[in-house]
């Protein structure tokens, strides 16, 4: 064998022998969760450098947002993180409501929290399914999808869609729950805590799973903060930062739940955080359902909500109008156009901190809509996370930070 090596060395030259080896991983690799391309520089099996290349799913959502009215933009936010689209809708609606100074009715707030937490469970289930499948655990994939299907069926009853919900609207939500949905959700919250131990039986102490995840992709809390990681990826490194707790929005300050934190900072810790979060989300849904019974029959949309119709342009002669800008959007209800100004609202979506920065010039459409997508920030952390790791560990690292390319490329 050494003889053969000598011959090869002679053929390709002594200098090239020590040169790094370059590999393109993706954009069509099934383990890159979409269309992420990683340009890897390898030294044998070890990664010396990694370059994420993005933009394969760019649809210009931020620019499109400037050509749509505020209400129509809700449809665009569905397509950001399409695994948990209700959470994106809520984040966007909160930003517009803050800009307009709208007060959302209590019942609508509770309904929003419920769909947000359902989205969190649905997202984490899909994450666990694909992450486990990447590492090699096929059975978990099937079990997770079985439970996600249940949630999607409930979503279908709530708003008529399974993936792109468009459920909240500016000033509230579009439809109230039916008694059947509440019944079904009670059933789900009772059954789901029994389902989580099933996944844990399969992978929690499984030696293959432990070997693939423990001590892989380690990141310290300080570095995670510096890289801008948020959500479970940050909490896996022991940083206590959850927007639902630190900057409570909606009715999160009234709810009793714990922040899931682990301290190791490796792939396994991030997995534990998400498993814990699913349990906490289940608890939140349960509490919200109880709260829902207290405000039975209340409206789910603010009375001064702009409705789906918003004027696209500014009023033509604002200086000539004797009154402040007013348009009649719904018969008999006077609604001001969105005032000038800018606003940044961040919400805790399953992937991390999703922020919407809206700049308004007084017209019915945003002058600028900037989206701070957690996946985009998380992808920038991949080079640091997988430096010095083996090629096979990249799969675990990409899976553990939970990226969705629809949100990253926008």
């Amino acid at each position, binding site marked *: 064998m050494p003889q053969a090596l000598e011959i090869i060395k002679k053929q390709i030259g002594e200098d090239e022998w020590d040169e790094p080896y370059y590999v393109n991983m993706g954009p069509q690799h099934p383990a890159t969760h979409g269309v992420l391309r990683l340009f890897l520089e390898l030294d044998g099996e070890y990664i010396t450098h990694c370059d994420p290349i993005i933009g394969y799913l760019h649809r210009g959502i931020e620019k499109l947002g400037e050509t749509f009215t505020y209400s129509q933009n809700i449809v665009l936010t569905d397509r950001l993180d399409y695994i948990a689209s209700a959470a994106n809708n809520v984040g966007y609606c909160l930003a517009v409501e803050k800009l307009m100074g709208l007060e959302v009715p209590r019942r609508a707030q509770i309904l929003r929290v419920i769909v947000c937490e359902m989205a969190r469970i649905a997202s984490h289930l899909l994450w666990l399914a694909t992450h486990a499948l990447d590492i090699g655990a096929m059975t978990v994939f099937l079990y997770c999808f079985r439970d996600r299907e249940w949630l999607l069926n409930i979503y*279908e009853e709530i708003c008529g869609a399974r993936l792109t919900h468009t459920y909240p609207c500016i000033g509230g939500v579009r439809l109230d729950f*039916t008694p059947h949905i509440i019944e079904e959700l009670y059933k789900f919250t009772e059954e789901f805590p029994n389902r989580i131990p099933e996944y844990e039986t399969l992978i929690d102490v499984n030696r293959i799973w432990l070997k693939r995840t423990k001590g892989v992709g380690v990141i310290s809390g300080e570095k995670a903060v510096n890289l801008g990681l948020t959500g479970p990826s940050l909490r896996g490194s022991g940083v206590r930062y959850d927007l639902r707790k630190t900057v409570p929005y909606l009715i999160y300050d009234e709810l009793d739940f714990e922040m899931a934190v682990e301290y190791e900072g490796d792939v396994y810790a991030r997995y534990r955080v998400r498993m814990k979060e699913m349990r906490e989300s289940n608890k939140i849904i349960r509490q919200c359902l109880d709260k829902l019974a207290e405000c039975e029959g209340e*409206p789910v949309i603010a009375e001064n909500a702009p*409705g789906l119709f918003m004027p696209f342009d500014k009023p033509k002669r604002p200086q000539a109008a004797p009154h402040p800008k007013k348009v009649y959007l719904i*018969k008999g209800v006077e609604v001001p156009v969105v005032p000038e100004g800018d606003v940044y609202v961040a919400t805790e979506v399953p992937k991390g901190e999703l922020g919407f920065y809206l700049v308004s010039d007084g017209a019915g459409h945003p002058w600028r809509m900037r989206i701070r997508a957690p996946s985009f920030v998380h992808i920038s952390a991949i080079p640091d996370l997988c430096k010095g790791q083996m090629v096979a560990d990249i799969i675990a690292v990409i899976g553990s930070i939970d990226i969705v390319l629809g949100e990253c490329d926008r």
Partner: protein
Amino acid sequence: MGLIKTVFLTEIMKGLSLTLRKLFAKPVTIQYPEVKKEPAPGFRGRHALVRDPKTGKDRCVGCYRCAQVCPSRCIFIETERDPNTRKRIVTRYDIDALRCVYCAFCVEVCPVNALVLTEFYEYSGYSRDELYFTKEKLLQNWDEFIVTQKRPYFNPFWKPRGVPEKMLPGPKRKAEGI
């Protein structure tokens, strides 16, 4: 991991026993082409124009609200005035289903509930023309859909649950099933 656990593969045995138990559980898979999933009421599927049982025609009044609110701009309407009665006649009502994003904004804003996203979901086609619905096709969609439904049929977006009545236009407040 202790020595006994390492040697006897306890955790793997536990996992295997779980999958073995699941072998005898009721399957969750739906054998799709043979068994069809019943969509929930209000599922946003194929478009249809409601055929009014009284007049036998569509209800559209040509107010252009659906076309205006549509985020993907896939509704095309043309109207003209009747020279004698000065009433608006809808001469063209087209929906390009391939551009539609199924948000049901159009159904929600329609003041006379002329439009509906039916619960029918099996309508793939071999060409683009098949999925470009003209007014006749939309009415035909409704006829095909309504025979499969329990009467009276009522779409949740015709009168959204929990929305105060005074926020709805008049005909929507009085909306009834067909």
